[in-house]
């Protein structure tokens, strides 16, 4: 099955999520000139506005991304308020895990591992009292260092960080190589 050009663009924009993707990146990936892609994108912006889509295409700062339609908000809200015991989101878990395993750690270092920005996430985790600032790194720019809190230990029923389960060794030697060679 050959995907249509628009659906390839749809797929690419989908993958980049909230990060968005630029006209130039799309043009490079598809080896089609920007002008043509721009026309398609403009058509798509109109396409997704109709009642058959739950999200729409927007262009912010030259980055194209999908966002859910305003009407969806209430339904999502209902799901969340009905979910009695809120699980930590995958993003929150990942950010917490990185901090717990690597603390003290700067925001940039966390972002390097996760591959996405985590400014907002850090603020939320701080607001939830799961993460706190613990000083500044000695490196250039003296960025803020973060660590997890007692609240975090409590949430995960840990006496101390020493109790964290061991990370299997990936990049290095045996274990990963054998399983995922």
């Amino acid at each position, binding site marked *: 099955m050959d995907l249509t050009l628009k659906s390839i663009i749809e797929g690419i924009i989908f993958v980049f999520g909230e990060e968005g993707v630029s006209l130039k990146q799309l043009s490079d990936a598809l080896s089609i000139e920007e002008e043509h892609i721009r026309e398609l994108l403009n058509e798509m912006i109109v396409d997704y506005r109709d009642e058959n889509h739950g999200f729409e295409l927007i262009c912010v700062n030259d980055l194209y991304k999908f966002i859910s339609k305003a009407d969806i908000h209430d339904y999502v809200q209902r799901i969340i308020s009905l979910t009695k015991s809120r699980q930590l989101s995958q993003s929150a878990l990942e950010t917490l895990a990185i901090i717990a395993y690597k603390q003290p750690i700067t925001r940039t270092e966390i972002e390097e*591992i996760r591959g996405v920005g985590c400014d907002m996430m850090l603020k939320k985790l701080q607001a939830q009292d799961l993460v706190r600032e613990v000083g500044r790194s000695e490196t250039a720019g003296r960025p803020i260092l973060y660590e997890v809190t007692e609240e975090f230990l409590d949430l995960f029923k840990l006496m101390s960080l020493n109790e964290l389960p061991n990370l*299997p060794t990936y990049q290095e030697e045996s274990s990963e190589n054998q399983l995922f060679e």
Partner: protein
Amino acid sequence: MSNFNVTLEQFSGPLDLMLHLIKDKKLDLFDLQVDVLIDQYILFLDSVENKLEIATEYLYELAALIEYKSKKCLPVDPKPLEVNDYEEDTKDQLVRRLIEYQQFKDISQLLNERFLLRQKQFEKPMEKQILDIADEENIRFVHADQNDLLKAMQKCLLRFNYTHPSQVKITKTEMSIEDRSEQMILMISNLKEPFSFEDMIQDVEDRSLLIVSFLAILELNRRDIIEFWVENTEVYFRRGKLYGLDA
């Protein structure tokens, strides 16, 4: 005699090896000539260079096969019932095991195709608005498990390995020292001598490119394409004697 171009590492166990030998010798699995298989198996293990490398599982199966063969070599017992039963049993059992193993070997290949396809398909992260809504609703986190934490970290590291270096900086961080050197050779042709380190890195936006640039400068210096000297703690550069000559 047959020459083994295969090594033990290519097999995931003794049964895998036996299936290979059966296929190689065009034996009929449903009417298996166990003797031929045994000879081939022994021959193969003999051919393994470092005997110590042979895992116990291979030797265990070998021992079982030899036991079977030795029973067959014994003079026919006047009351052969038991022996024959035993022989049949061993042979049938081996064939049954080989067939069952072949099933899983085949199905693993099918699963692997599914796995490789799924690897090419990406999920998108949850929208941040969910966190905002959770905040508005003032929902506290109640369930959390240490293993969730471990899993999250593993997922991160796997993804990191998969997509490293991270997206945004790709074009820059991906640049090799060689590519950067070529770029710099072009760039310094426009610079008025002497030029400074800053002049050469004016297009650098991130740390990794800075490091690559620095290494490229060292490389260019080594190749006599640029020269540098120090005056009053300031470093000055100029085109070297092989500039424009170095292929």
